């Protein structure tokens, strides 16, 4: 047995395409195992569909590795959190006259990228419901200081700095007094926060990032009674334009999660569907060929009915009307395919086998029908089926992707098809978010190629008639 297996492997590896296919499939399996072990299935779904979890992730950020290929370095995400004891935070208390105090949180960060960030959001958390006055100061390199605003803090406050139009007005006024004119185009607030304030800012094409050390000061004014028991923290997020190995989507979700978890789902869906369908078809064909007569007639007519039924519209109708999950979809696909056209070709093979001398011999000694089907007939054609099982895996992976693309896929599932659908729905192609389309597509492509290459090589081995051709 082991000898036969190793001989088979050696023969298989003679085909380079088989080797490539095996490597691809093996790495997909490793990826799937990694996904399943690190993040449980339920957790992945919960995380993917949550909003809070992704709050600190940039919107529509490209993958980080694009920075290797571009001359202009795009900004990474910068998160500064005063709850973490890091040296970029400095918390001090300043006492003022009259029993008033200022709690000051000072964030320092270096901004060294060639492009402006996508957003800037400051979140302030307080453990008391009392109202405090806060003042936020933004200090650019070269000690250019702006007071962004005074705000009232009660409990929790999210300050969307990059949407603060008041600041922009003050900034423009300041520019006019400084260099005599204001930009002729709509200056973005993130640009105002990060741009060099010289003549270059007047033109959209020349505006430059002022690189260097930035400081953000959050001052909270409070009375003596609060200074010791009110705890105030802040989190400043300077959202980048690149993130992680896969980038993010329109809901700030890290695509890496979906791409990672898409692998086990695609593999499971494709493999379960193709193995089950092929075996069921073979089993039905064997019974039909062995018993013949009315049973054969019924099976034949069933396959003909299934041939008239248009497969994709049926699957679409069922998954649209009943809003089924991906595993129910798998069941529907299997049920609609077990009387597929494969039954006809397997039946033809079985009819030939039925006439072979060894079958006749078994009949002569009185073997049961069960034994005939499972010991003599099915094992005979098993080898010819293995290539078709492998070759049909991509069909089902793409079927799931196609349903997702039309928006009838499982709304909860985290699949490559769903990522494609989100991208298509958000018009990623028009907006130039190519990574968003390319990443899931490439994974689908690699998966399909892997199974196709292995399958075609297996086909040549198991169907020797093809080999010499």
């Amino acid at each position, binding site marked *: 047995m082991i000898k036969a297996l190793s001989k088979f492997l050696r023969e298989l590896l003679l085909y380079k395409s088989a080797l490539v296919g095996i490597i691809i499939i093996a790495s997909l399996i490793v990826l799937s195992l990694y996904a399943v072990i690190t993040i449980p299935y339920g957790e992945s779904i919960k995380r993917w569909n949550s909003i809070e979890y992704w709050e600190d992730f940039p919107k529509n950020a490209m993958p980080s590795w694009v920075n290797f290929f571009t001359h202009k370095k795009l900004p990474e995400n910068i998160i500064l959190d005063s709850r973490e004891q890091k040296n970029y935070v400095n918390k001090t208390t300043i006492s003022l006259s009259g029993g008033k105090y200022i709690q000051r949180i000072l964030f320092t960060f270096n901004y060294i990228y060639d492009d402006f960030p996508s957003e800037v959001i400051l979140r302030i958390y307080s453990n008391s419901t009392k109202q405090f006055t806060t003042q936020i100061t933004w200090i650019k390199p070269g000690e250019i200081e702006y007071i962004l605003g005074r705000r009232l803090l009660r409990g929790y406050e999210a300050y969307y700095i990059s949407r603060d139009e008041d600041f922009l007005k003050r900034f423009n006024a300041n520019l006019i007094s400084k260099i005599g004119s204001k930009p002729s185009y709509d200056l973005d607030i993130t640009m105002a926060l990060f741009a060099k304030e010289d003549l270059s800012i007047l033109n959209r094409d020349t505006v430059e990032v002022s690189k260097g050390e930035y400081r953000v000061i959050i001052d909270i004014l409070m009375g003596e009674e609060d200074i010791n028991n009110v705890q105030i923290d802040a989190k400043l997020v300077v959202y980048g334009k690149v993130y992680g190995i896969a980038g993010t989507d329109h809901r700030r979700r890290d695509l890496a999660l979906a791409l990672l978890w898409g692998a086990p789902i695609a593999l499971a869906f494709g493999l379960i569907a193709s193995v089950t369908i092929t075996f069921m078809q073979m089993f039905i064909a064997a019974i039909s060929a062995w018993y013949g007569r009315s049973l054969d007639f019924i099976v034949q007519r069933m396959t003909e009915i299934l041939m008239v039924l248009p497969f994709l519209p049926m699957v679409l109708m069922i998954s649209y009307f009943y809003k089924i999950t991906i595993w129910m979809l798998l069941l529907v696909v299997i049920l609609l395919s077990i009387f597929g056209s494969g039954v006809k070709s397997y039946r033809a093979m079985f009819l030939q086998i039925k006439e072979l001398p060894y079958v006749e011999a078994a009949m002569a000694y009185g073997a049961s029908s069960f034994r005939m089907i499972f010991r003599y007939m099915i094992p005979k054609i098993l080898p010819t089926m293995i290539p078709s099982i492998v070759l049909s895996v991509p069909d089902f992976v793409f079927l799931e992707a196609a349903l997702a693309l039309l928006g009838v896929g499982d709304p909860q599932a985290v699949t490559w098809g769903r990522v*494609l659908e989100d991208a298509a729905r958000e018009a990623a192609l028009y907006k130039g978010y190519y990574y968003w389309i390319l990443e899931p597509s490439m994974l689908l492509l690699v998966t399909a190629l892997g199974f196709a290459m292995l399958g075609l090589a297996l086909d040549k081995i198991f169907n020797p008639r093809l080999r010499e051709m």
Partner: protein
Amino acid sequence: MVLILMFSRYRYDVLKRLGKYIIIRGIAISITTIIAIYIVILVANMGGFIDEIIKTEIQFNVYESIRNNPAYRGFNKSVLEEIAQKMIELEIKRFGLDKPFIYRSFNYLIDALTLNLGRAYRLTSASGSKQVRIIILERLPASILLFTSIQLMLFFSSLFSGLYLSRKYGSKIDKIIVSLSPLSSMPGWFYGIFLIMIFASWLGILPYGGIVDAPPPEHPLFYALSVLKHMVLPMLSWFIAYFAINTYSMRTFFLMFSSEDYVELAKAKGVPAREIEKKYILRPTLPPIVTQLALLLISSWMGAIITENVFNWPGIGSLMWAAIANNDSPVLIGIVTIYAYLLAITVLLLDIIYVLIDPRIKIGGVGT
């Protein structure tokens, strides 16, 4: 004389058996078609659930119209309720929803089988008609134009290149085609996404989708050119997806036939290579090739749901999807019925033609 008699006797026998065969085949095909259409009726109506949706919609519409109609203002509530109930009953009768679903499902079946396709629930044609027949006929040309062209192009190009490769198998070009065949593990629409990305989004030389520029050009020539421009990407996507595998299977198919004993014999006899190809290889391969072509053409009239969606092509495929998304079962049933009819007729015709033209097919028992 005796010989002629025997011969005509033989002919008569063949004709009789052929007639019997055709009738039995015809009955079997009709039964499967009817059952398949009935299954589609059940699924498209969600086993009667769609009716409930439509009933609630009727109620809603009736109450709404009464509320908005100034003629009913000032009426007493119970009177209004009575009027509403009457109107709802009438509407339900008009839709034919007053009888149980099982009963109506057979009505639907008879309507479908007699090609009485009826009216759509929600969809309308561009001309504003609710007749299912008009809606389908309006979309059909777009699907035929695109997918029949694609299928014909694919079929003939792979037929001839397959034949060419079978002649010089083992050559470099043969190996290239064989090694390209894994490309076909991906569907056409998938390549469509890439092509849109390259030619529409990045290079900007071809349209993203649709059938004609907006606004459509006035001059018929420019109109045709604009349609052609919109056809390039979908056709190319299917060509990339299916050319290699089609050529590969055609080539293998011809190779199998060219290694038959009678071909070897002809070669041994010294029959010229052209002659062998024409008479000994092409002729016996004709029936399966014709079948394939016929089935391809019929399925091409149904369009392709996903490709049409990706390319925003207004054909039968996108109509089918619109019908599913709008719970519009009459349209769905109409499309499937037409498809089933075409398929059944084609299969029966092909059966008959083969019996007539292929001397190797013998009419034996029933159900072969």
